[in-house]
C-alpha cells in the first residue's frame, strides 16, 4: 500500500477528520463532496472507500473533490503517486458506479498555478474514469463558500 509523503504532516489532522461515514440509510443521496488540502490529497482514500461502500442510494451519481491550498506548479505527472496515493482503488469503484447508473467525478480547484500538471495527475490516478470521460475539472471559487 502506497502511503503519501504528506502523511506525516497530516498526523495531527487525524482527530479532526470527518470520515468514514455510514451512509446506508441515506437512500436519496445524490452527491458527496470532500474538501481536502492538496498536501493531504493522498490520505483519505481508505476512509472514502469505506464510506462509499456503505452507500445504497440508487441516485448517487456524483463525487466532488474540492482541493484547497497551494498546489505545486511544476509537479510532473509521473510523480503523481506521491501525492495521490492509492486512488486507483477508488477509480475501480467509480467505474463500477458509472457502469451501473452513470457517475461523474468533479475535481474542483479554487486557484492553482500548474493546472495542466495537476489535471494530468488526476487523470493518471483515475485512468478508468478518465477513459470513460467521467472526470470534470473545474477552476473557480468554491460554491457557497
Amino acid at each position, binding site marked *: 500500500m502506497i502511503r503519501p509523503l504528506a502523511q506525516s504532516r497530516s498526523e495531527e*489532522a487525524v482527530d479532526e477528520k470527518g470520515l468514514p461515514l*455510514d451512509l446506508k*440509510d*441515506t437512500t436519496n443521496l445524490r452527491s458527496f463532496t470532500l*474538501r481536502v488540502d492538496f498536501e493531504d490529497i493522498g490520505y483519505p482514500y481508505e476512509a472514502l472507500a469505506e464510506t462509499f461502500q456503505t452507500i445504497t442510494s440508487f441516485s448517487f451519481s456524483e463525487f466532488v473533490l474540492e482541493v484547497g491550498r497551494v498546489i505545486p506548479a511544476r509537479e510532473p505527472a509521473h510523480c503523481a503517486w506521491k501525492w495521490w496515493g492509492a486512488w486507483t482503488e477508488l477509480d475501480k469503484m467509480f467505474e463500477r458506479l458509472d457502469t451501473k447508473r452513470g457517475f461523474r467525478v468533479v475535481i474542483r480547484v479554487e486557484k492553482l498555478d500548474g493546472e495542466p500538471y495537476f489535471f494530468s495527475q488526476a487523470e493518471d490516478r483515475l485512468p478508468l474514469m478518465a477513459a470513460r470521460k467521467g472526470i470534470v475539472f473545474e477552476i473557480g471559487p468554491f460554491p457557497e463558500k
Partner: protein
Amino acid sequence: MGKLRRFKDPQQIPGALVESYSIGHILRRWRSAILGGEEKKKVSQFPPPEPTDKLIEEPQITNVEPSLDLGTITITETWKGLPQEIVDHIVFMLRNDLESLKACSLTCKAMFISTRHVIHRKICLTWEKNWDLLTIPEKQRYIRGERQGIAVRVLSAIAAHGLLPYARHLYIHLNRNFTPVNLQPFNDHFQRFDRIQELSIYWLHIPDFLSGNFDAYFPNFVPTLRSLHLETPTGDTRDILDFICRFPNLDDLTFKMVSGDSRDWRTSGPLPVVNKMPPFRGRLKLCGIDERCGRMIQQLISLPGKCHFRSVDFRSCRFEVEQPIVDACSSTLESISTTWGRFCE
C-alpha cells in the same frame, strides 16, 4: 467620401476626420438590431432615418479626440426606449456582478431603478461602516465605551438613503454592540426590514433578544425569514434552540463556531416547547462545531416534527458530530459535504 471609408479605425490616426453621431442615433440602430424589422414601424415617433447617401455625401465632419466628449454630446435617447423585459433580463444576467450593476445604474434613470433592488439586496451593518459615520467626538465616546445612540448609527444612514425596503439579506457584524440597548434608538428603522429572507448575525447574545425583546426587535423577520446564519452565538443552548424555532419558515440553518466557543454554553432546564417546528427543507451548514454544539444541533433536529434537510455541509467539525446528524436527516439527504484534515477556507 473615399477617405472616410478608408479610415475604419480613427483612433489609430490622431486627428482623423470622423463622422459624429448622437447617442440617440446609435441607440436607435442598436434597438433596430435587437428588435428586428417588425419594430421599425413602432420607431416612427423618432425622426425618419436619413438616407444613406446623404450620410455619406454630407457628413458632419469634425476633428475630434479619440475619447468621447460627454460634456458636449447631445443625448436624444435613453434606455427608456428599450422594452422593460430586455432591461430586466440584462439586470438578471448581471445579478452576481455588483460592479457591473453599479456601472449600469449610472447610465440612466431606467437602469438606476431596475438595478437598485438587486444592488441593495444585501445590506451589511458592520462596525467598520458604522465607525466611518461617526464624528470625532462620537468616536471618542465610542472608544470610552459610551456607545448608546451611536453603536448602530449605520442604520440611520441606510434609512436616509431609502434602502431598507430593498433588503432581502441582512448581514449584521457589529461585534458585541448588537444589543437591545444599542439597537433601541434605531428600532424604528430596524422594523422596516420587513422582507428579509436571509439573516446573518456575527456574535449574538441570544438571551438578550428573547422573552419580550424578541417581539420588540424581531417580529418583522418572522413571516419571511428562510435562512438563518449564526456565527459564534452565545447563551444557553435552550435559548439558542428557542430563538431558532421562533422563525417558523426557516429552511436553511448555519452555525459557525470557533473551536472552544461553546465552552461557556450552559444547558439548563428542559428543551423549549415549540409550537411549530421550522420546516428545515434546505441546507444545514456547520462550521467548527465541537461535541457540545453538536449535541445542541442533535437536540434541535430531534425536536417534535420531522427534519427535512436536503443538504448537510460539515466544515472542520468533530467526527463525533457528523454521523448522528447524517442519521437524523438520512431520509431526505441528497447531498453531503465534509472536509478532511484541516482544510482551510
